[in-house]
């Protein structure tokens, strides 16, 4: 019985993440269109797209790694989602959030990218491989300030568990005010994590023709879209848990995640694309300085 409830909870979590993530993508398309003085597709367009793509039959494939790439990608998005607390108080969707800590999650988030990278590599499309080398290089860039921010919080409160950090914020107030430098570093790292402009060097529509996903159509693309939106929600929830003390109910969670989501989105709307080395150096500039300052701050305090 217990197992059944937990399984149902996990499925419910994933469905919520899918719906919310897709909605945010739709709003993103709408806002982007309005900024560019277009009408834009309706907000529910992404649901229609995903449904259409997933219901398609697979007619061609390039081999087993390419075939399984979406499955690897889903491990990161769904798996990570199950290991972070969605709501505070743990009455809703506790899932597995007591069974993994921050450092584990940092690494677990990478498995999908690796599987996806190998899948894209097997298609033999040179653009895919170029996109992946760019993506991995950029990851090395933004992980440095991101890890610095996380380590700063870990040493400030002597815990590596997300639930503990949320509980601590109940007493001391939001971490974005307790350690503002760490928050800033993490937010700047988030720009790279979401891969919107100016860090959209992986897909780079102009020169790489959407990069890694260029050989994936139909069911593959549908699953990748779903995975992408689940992962977006996962990352936003993680940020809310870490810096805004988690949400007590789903409405607050939506407001907080959407506010955070606006940052990379709006920043991207007004920025042209960086070259890869510029992107890496961007993250190793001010974000890393802020991260170092956050470390010093949390040691001193």
């Amino acid at each position, binding site marked *: 019985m217990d197992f059944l409830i937990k399984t149902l909870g996990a499925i419910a979590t994933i469905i919520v993440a899918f719906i919310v993530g897709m909605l945010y993508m739709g709003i993103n398309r709408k806002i982007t269109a309005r900024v560019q003085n277009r009408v834009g597709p309706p907000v529910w367009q992404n649901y229609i797209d995903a449904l259409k793509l997933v219901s398609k039959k697979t007619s061609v494939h390039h081999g087993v790694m390419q075939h399984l790439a979406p499955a690897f990608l889903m491990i990161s998005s769904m798996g990570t989602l199950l290991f972070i607390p969605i709501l505070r108080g743990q009455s809703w969707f506790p899932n597995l959030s007591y069974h993994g800590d921050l450092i*584990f999650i940092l690494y677990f988030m990478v498995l999908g990218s690796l599987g996806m990278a190998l899948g894209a590599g097997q298609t033999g499309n040179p653009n895919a491989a170029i996109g992946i080398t760019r993506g991995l290089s950029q990851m090395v860039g933004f992980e440095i300030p991101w890890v610095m921010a996380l380590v700063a919080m870990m040493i400030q409160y002597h815990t590596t568990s997300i639930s503990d950090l949320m509980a601590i914020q109940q007493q001391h107030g939001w971490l974005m005010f307790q350690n503002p430098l760490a928050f800033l570093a993490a937010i700047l790292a988030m720009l790279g994590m979401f891969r919107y402009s100016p860090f959209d060097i992986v897909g780079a529509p102009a020169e790489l023709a959407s990069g890694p996903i260029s050989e994936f159509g139909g069911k593959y693309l549908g699953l990748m879209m779903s995975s992408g939106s689940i992962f977006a929600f996962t990352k936003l929830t993680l940020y809310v848990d870490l810096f805004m003390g988690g949400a007590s109910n789903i409405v607050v969670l939506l407001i907080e995640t959407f506010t955070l989501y606006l940052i990379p989105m709006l920043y991207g709307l007004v920025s042209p694309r960086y070259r890869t080395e510029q992107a890496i150096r961007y993250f190793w500039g001010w974000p890393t300085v802020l991260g170092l300052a956050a470390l010093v701050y949390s040691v001193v305090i």
Partner: protein
Amino acid sequence: MNIIHITLGILLGGAILTYFANKISGVVRDLMFISTIVVAAALFFIKMTPDTVAVFNLGGITLSLGMNHLGLLFSIIILGLAVLAGFYSLPYMKGKDNLGFFYMNYLLSIFGMMGIVMSKDLVSFFIFWEIMTWSSYLIVVYNGNKANKIGIKYILFSALGAYSMLMAIVMVYSQLHSFSIADLSAGFTTMPASYQITIALLLITGFAVKAAMMPLHVWAPDAYSNAPMSYTAMFSGALSKMGVYGLVIVFVTMVSHLPQNFWVRETIAWLGAITAGMATIYAIFQDDAKKLLAYSSVAQLGYIITGVAIGTEISMIAALMLSIVHGMFKANFFMVVGAVERQAGTTDLTVLTGLIRKMPWTFFSALMSAIALAGIPPLVGYVGKWMLYESLISNGNYILVIVIFFASTAGFLYVFKILYSIFLGQEEPEFENVKEAPALMVIPMVIIALLLGFFGAFPGYLLKYIDNALVVMGYPVSQGKWWEMTTLFNAWGNKVSTDLIMYTTITVFVTIAIVLFYRWKNGRYVSTKDISLSGEMPKEDENYSFKLDFYKPFERAISPLLRYKISKYYNEFADGMEAFFDWTRRIYNGNAQTYAIYVITFLVILLLIANNIFTV
């Protein structure tokens, strides 16, 4: 006569017999070789109990050997890998010259390593250490090409390590009048402070050479990549761990008693972290699979050295865990590259392409090793890394953790590079007839790959042995405090459940895979040339795989760092010495008349001085 005599006897006797069996026939030699390893390993694991001791008398010198849990842990790495790499070796080395010599040295180096982990006194430790060094040197130069220079580099650094070790041993004897390691750890505190620090540093130098710690790592990339892959699996997997074994003993029994304890620890830990960072960056830019893995080995040993140097309970567990796991995945990776070399004829990453459909099992083991190497859950690679991070964070080494994290994240780059370049990308007509490697090569690789998954869910099976080893070294029991069979804890009581992670991963993966495989039969395979490339279709003889300058943008981003290459300084030093010796050749120019002048001049000077001395 007990199991220690028997194991060492079998290995030594087997080495000699294998050499002479080569004169009879190749089959006898192969049988002799593999049965030596298998019988020695089987007897060892069945019969060996910790606290067995043995004494050898060698013409007046008494060598005392014994086994404890720390030695047992390392013997598992050595003999386990020896069996797997031994079977792999048979088809891999088939048809090469001078195999009797190769297999003899192979067995001798295993003999040396087993001797090291069983030594109870410094003399036997040193003797076995030299046997190991020389046999591995002879295998490094076995391949012949450019081997001379590489071999000289290896033996030069090994000699440096051996001399510092020898010096430390002499100093120990001068103080304690005993060679016993137990006496040394007991009497270390009674020595004068200057002796303590000198002995510790000399021993660290000696072991750091084998563990390839910066700045003593220069020999490693060449030596690893130049030896035959079936031996490099042992070389990088087990032999380098002898350095770790020595460092563990030095740090626990000596460094912890030093007054300068903190600084030694921090220095070595930082050197380890810098080794990891720099070697990772160099691995990223290698275009040869062997070289890439060799640099990666240096980097991975950097983490281990950092863990040992920090020396808290959890960092020790992390270091030993990483040692075992590195032994597994790196041996496996070298075997993969060996298989590719044998089947496709090259290890050049810019030439190889699209082998995944030709060598699926090799790809599977490479993939598993890659995930473990990158430290990604759910495979066992992340257990050690997780513990290392936790130990550094809770111990207050905040900047160190960032450096290690950088090295580890940058590690994904070369992991992807080697997998992509060998197995993925567009297929090439040149490799159309490549077949999967023989079963004897594939089975050891797949066994290791599956073990990496199994221990990922149940790391307790490995941690149990590590716990026993650390208890021998004087650490408290760690089970229940730092780990359970399927759970890991950190200093603040946060935990990671390895089995749940594994089950979650498998559930999600299988669910999505079912969705994907639903009506899979309707799909057909299309070649990697049939892709959307702006309407362009590559011709049969064209290959659009992305191979050259793989990480050019990354290289541009970190170009300031690349200026520092330690081997440059060594080369400058070598050039300087060469110039100096050239200059001395002007004095010793081989001309008898010049020498006559020297003799006369010398006599004149002597006379003048003598006059001065005696007349005044």
